[in-house]
């Protein structure tokens, strides 16, 4: 009650004092280094909506800060696939009808109905990509077509590997390497995963997600788990690295724009989502982030370097899986394995 009074008062003040805000505001909560400023400026010039953006460094950090009281301050956020499901299950998302977005039909068919958001009632695609690893070809010239490069590395790479500081991706890739399902409750399989990781750890130099690109460019690491777009950026910055497509499989993920519950500017949030579904805008985003859009008709607007990058063109035979969100009891076991790895 008090809060809404205050909000009304603030809104009244802004409306009264500054005509520039007449078309309202939009508050975005996004990953770090994931949105080109010119695209936001374009949105503002088209709609008159003033945009402010805060950033977070992981899906988990997004969830934590929303649960710690930031819900109601932002209109949209960009969670990954499994986090969309978690946020929806926890009641942190508002829903919309396809009719509310005139460009809804621009979503590519394969992303129009997804398991983490059936029928797309909370989210639209933002960018999608894969997580595998890259190897410095000056240091190691052998075959890199297996996750063994990370989990049972050759002599040249031992002690020079960076691993993402992200439980979901590390444990999913580890499970693929062993050929066991994610979110298993089979004791022998969990024990095997635990033991394999503990055996691999002495070969690793560091854990780091936001530093994953930097350590490959600087040469601190000769191989490292990495997202495909990050790897192509590292290559563009001069590192002689190759992004691997391991035979055991790799992680695929999709970041999405979600409509948050209690969004202070729901209308503007929908305008923004609609804006991001325009092929030209989705392409501008893709040219910056170096991943892939989930929107039809972006190809004419894409830079050749992005369109043809080896990181964005996996072999047809490549097997990809999403990181699964386990239930509470199962998650406890994976938390324990992660703790064992990092203790």
């Amino acid at each position, binding site marked *: 009650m008090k809060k809404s009074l205050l909000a009304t008062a603030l809104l009244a003040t802004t409306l009264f004092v500054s005509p520039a805000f007449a078309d309202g505001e939009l508050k975005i909560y996004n990953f770090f280094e994931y949105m080109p400023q010119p695209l936001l400026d374009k949105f503002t010039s088209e709609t008159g909506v003033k945009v402010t953006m805060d950033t977070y460094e992981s899906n988990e950090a997004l969830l*934590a800060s929303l649960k710690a009281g930031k819900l109601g301050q932002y209109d949209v956020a960009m969670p990954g696939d499994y986090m969309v499901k978690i946020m929806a299950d926890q009641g942190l998302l508002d829903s919309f009808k396809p009719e509310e977005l005139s460009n809804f039909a621009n979503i590519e068919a394969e992303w129009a109905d997804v398991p983490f958001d059936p029928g797309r009632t909370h989210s639209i695609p933002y960018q999608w990509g894969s997580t595998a690893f890259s190897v410095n070809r000056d240091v190691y010239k052998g075959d890199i077509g297996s996750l063994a490069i990370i989990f049972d590395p050759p002599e040249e790479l031992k*002690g020079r590997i960076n691993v993402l500081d992200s439980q979901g991706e590390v444990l999913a890739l580890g499970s693929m390497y062993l050929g066991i399902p994610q979110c298993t409750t089979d004791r022998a399989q969990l*024990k095997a995963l*635990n033991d394999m990781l503990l055996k691999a750890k002495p070969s*690793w130099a*560091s854990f780091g997600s936001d530093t994953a690109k930097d350590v490959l460019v600087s040469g601190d690491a000769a191989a490292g788990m990495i997202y495909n777009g990050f790897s192509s950026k590292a290559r563009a910055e001069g590192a002689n690295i190759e992004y691997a497509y391991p035979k055991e499989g790799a992680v695929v993920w999709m970041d999405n724009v979600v409509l948050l519950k209690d969004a202070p500017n729901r209308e503007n949030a929908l305008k923004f989502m609609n804006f991001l579904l325009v092929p030209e805008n989705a392409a501008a985003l893709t040219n910056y982030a170096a991943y892939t859009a989930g929107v039809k008709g972006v190809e004419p607007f894409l830079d050749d370097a992005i369109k043809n990058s080896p990181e964005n063109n996996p072999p047809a035979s490549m097997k990809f899986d999403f990181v699964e969100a386990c239930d509470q009891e199962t998650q406890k076991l994976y938390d324990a*394995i992660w703790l064992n790895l990092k*203790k």
Partner: protein
Amino acid sequence: MAAAPHASGSLATGWRSLAVPLMLPTWLVIGTFLLVPVVLMGVYSVLTKDFRGGVVWEFSLAAYDQFFVTRGLFGDEPPQIEWTYIAIFWRSIWQAALATLLCLLIGFPTAWFIATRSPRHRALWVFLITVPYWVNLLIRTVSLRFLLRDQGPLNEGLLAIGVIDAPLRIINTDVAVQLGLFYSYLPFMVLPIYAAVERYNFALSEAARDLYAGPWTTLREIVLPVVKPGIVAGCILVFVPSLGAFLAPDLLGGAKTYMIGSLIDEQFRGSMGNWPFGGAVAMILMSLVLLVLLWQARAAGRGRR
């Protein structure tokens, strides 16, 4: 004539009656920004964990149970003492103690050097000590990372002048973490010792020499007892923040093993999402620090008597 003492008495009473309103801002700030968060943390540590962050408002000692007791990976073995977290604490304490010792070994001579310069130069030296600390700790730690890396200036320089044949592997090791802690907190050691040494009356050293005390005896019997409060203060100022540090272990140590700070951080921002446990670890850490401070206060009290 009798009015004067009365007046001064009323003045004192006047000030005394003002004491409460004058202290109010201090109490408010301490209460709001120190006590409330600590109490909040204590309360959260005895609540039930909600799945993936947050709490359920039901009393539970599960967080403390998790800290001290293990029932195996699958939770069905007979309860045993959980060594995982104790080991993390031990590692952090050991790192912090080593950093404190290093700071003391370098900081004491530095403070001594500064305190024995002429007063004008002293100010300059103290100023020089503090200059690097105008830059944010995060930036300084990242810079240290650049300096120490395999292809960084340190290794390239040593290679160029032929001291080493292969780059020293410093980054992502405990040595790098130690360097980071040492570098972060050195002035906290230098400044209190400097303040103590500055007050030291060097006539005492001369008197000791006149009485045939050697340099060692003078240091042990005369100097150290006088500057001890400064040393103790410096040690506490270095040890306590080192204990909870997580920038240096994460950025310089490669985040391979949890320290107390990163363990707590993970509970709130990482995938574990276990707020009560994060609160419990913080409470246990705070209790340890309080014990150290109490011990120091008692030791200081004894020293005075």
